[in-house]
C-alpha cells in the first residue's frame, strides 16, 4: 500500500473519518453464522466416531453424547440446528435479494483484474519483496476467494446435510447418494474450517486488520483503514458521499426556491 505517502495530518484526518462497512443485517448474519458453526462443528465432531474415522479428538464423542443424552438426540439437534442455519442463510438470500444479495455478489464476489494482480503479488509482498499491490475494493482478492470457498462450501454442506437428514426418503437403489454425502459433507466442512482458521486470525488477531474485526460489531471502519486497505472502496464511498451531498444540496436549493416555502421561513446566513 502507499500509506507511507500520507502526511501525519492526512492520517489523523482519515483516522477520524468513519465509514459504514457492514449493515446491521450483515452483522447479525455473520454472528449467527459463527454461532451456528461453533454449534454444528462441535456436535458434528461428536457424531463422527473417532474409532471408525480417526479424526475427532479423544473424549469428544463421549463429551458431546453425554451433554445431549446419547447419539440419537445429538444427531437430532445437529439436524435441527443445521436446518435452522440453512433456513436463515437462504431466507437472507431470497428476502434480501436486491437489497443485500446483489450488492454482496457485486462487491464481494466479482473478481476484477486488480484482484487477480493482488492475489499474484500478495505473497511476494508479505515476504518483503518490493512490489506495489493494486488498490482493492471493499474486499480484497484473498477475501473474495475465501468467500467462494464459503459459498460453495455452504451449498455443499447444506445439500449433503439434507440428504443425510432425510435419508429414509432415499430408495435403496440410490443408497450410494447417502454413502457419498457423508465424506463430501466432511470434506466441505473440513476445508471451510481450514479457511476459517485463517479468517479468525486475520479478522481478530492480526493488528493490521483490527479495524475490520471491530467493524463486525459496530459496522464502521475508520477512513485510514479504508484508505490503506480498500482504496477503491474508499474512493467509491467518497464519490457516493459527494454525489449524495450534491443531490441533497440540489433538493434543498429546489425547496428553498419553492414559492410555497415563504421567504420569511428561509434560513439566512
Amino acid at each position, binding site marked *: 500500500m502507499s500509506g507511507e505517502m500520507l502526511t501525519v495530518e492526512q492520517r489523523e484526518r482519515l483516522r477520524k473519518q468513519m465509514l459504514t462497512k457492514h449493515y446491521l443485517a450483515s452483522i447479525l448474519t455473520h454472528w449467527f453464522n459463527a454461532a451456528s458453526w461453533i454449534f454444528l462443528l462441535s456436535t458434528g465432531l461428536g457424531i463422527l466416531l473417532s474409532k471408525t474415522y480417526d479424526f475427532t479428538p479423544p473424549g469428544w464423542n463421549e463429551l458431546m453424547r453425554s451433554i445431549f443424552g446419547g447419539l440419537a438426540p445429538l444427531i437430532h439437534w445437529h439436524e435441527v440446528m443445521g436446518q435452522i442455519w440453512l433456513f436463515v442463510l437462504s431466507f437472507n438470500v431470497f428476502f434480501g435479494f436486491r437489497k443485500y444479495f446483489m450488492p454482496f455478489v457485486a462487491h464481494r464476489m466479482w473478481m476484477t483484474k486488480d484482484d487477480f494482480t493482488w492475489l499474484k503479488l500478495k505473497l511476494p509482498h508479505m515476504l518483503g519483496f518490493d512490489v506495489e499491490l493494486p488498490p482493492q475494493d471493499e474486499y480484497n482478492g484473498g477475501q473474495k476467494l475465501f468467500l467462494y470457498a464459503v459459498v460453495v462450501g455452504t451449498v455443499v454442506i447444506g445439500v449433503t446435510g439434507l440428504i443425510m437428514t432425510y435419508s429414509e426418503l432415499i430408495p435403496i437403489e440410490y443408497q450410494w447418494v447417502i*454413502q457419498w454425502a457423508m465424506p463430501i459433507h466432511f470434506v466441505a466442512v473440513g*476445508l471451510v474450517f*481450514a479457511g476459517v482458521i485463517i479468517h479468525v486470525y486475520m479478522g481478530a488477531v492480526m493488528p493490521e486488520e483490527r479495524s475490520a474485526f471491530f467493524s463486525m460489531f459496530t459496522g464502521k471502519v475508520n477512513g485510514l483503514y479504508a484508505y490503506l486497505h480498500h482504496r477503491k472502496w474508499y474512493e467509491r464511498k467518497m464519490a457516493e458521499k459527494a454525489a449524495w451531498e450534491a443531490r441533497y444540496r440540489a433538493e434543498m436549493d429546489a425547496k428553498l426556491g419553492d414559492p410555497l416555502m415563504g421567504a420569511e421561513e428561509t434560513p439566512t446566513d
Partner: protein
Amino acid sequence: MPTVKRYAFVIDPRRCIDCRACLVACRAEWNVPLGHTRIWVHDGGVKGTFPDLYREFVPHQCHHCADPWCVQACPTGATYQREDGIVMIDEEACIGCGLCVNACPYGARFRNPETGKAEKCSACFHRVDQGELPACVATCVGGARMFGDLNDPESEVSKAIKGRRVYRLITDEVDTQPMTLYLAPIESEGVYPRPPEPLPAETFWKRVALPLVKGAIAATFLAQAGAFLLQLLKGEDEFEEA
C-alpha cells in the same frame, strides 16, 4: 461365575429339519417386512457319500462376532456392541447409509425399505434381558437352535459344547470371530463369509478425505501460528495502526 455375560448361539445343524418355524417366529416378533428376513435356514442339499447321506440345513443369522466389521464400518456408532456381545443397531441414530450392510461378510444385514434403517438379528435382546430366549430359539421344534451365556457353565450352550468340537463359519481370509458355534462341520460354501469389499465412498473417505482435511487444517493452523509468532516478535505499533 463371571459377572460379564458372553452370549452366543449354538446350532446343531443335524437337528434342523428346515421347518422354518424360526423364520416365522422372528418375523412375528419383529414385524420384518415381506421380502426380507433377519434369519435364514440355508439348504445345502445332499451331502456325504453313499450310503452315509444327509441333507444339510444350516440355520444362520447375525453371528454377533467378537470382531464385528459392521461396527467398525459405522461412522457414528449407531451400530455398536453391548458388553455381553450382542451387536445392536440404534434405529433412532441410524441414517441407513448401508456401510454396515456392505461390511458384514455374512450378508446378515439389510436396509428396511419401510424405515430406511439398517436391520438384522438383535438376538431378541428385549427377551434375553428379561431372562427369555430369542424367539427363533424358543420356537425351534428340533432343538437345533440354542442361545445362552458361554460364561455360565450351567447354561444350555455351555453344556451343549462341553467336551465337543465346535465349528465356526470362518475362512483363512475372513475371521471375525463369529459367536455362532456349530456342533457339526458345515460343508455348504454359501454360508461362509465373503472377503471384504469396501465401497468407493468408504475408500474415498479413508484414503482421500481424511488426509486432505487433516493436511488442510494443519497447514492453515501452522500458517496462522507462524504469522502470530512473527507478530509477537515484531511487537505492536499503536501509532501505525489503522
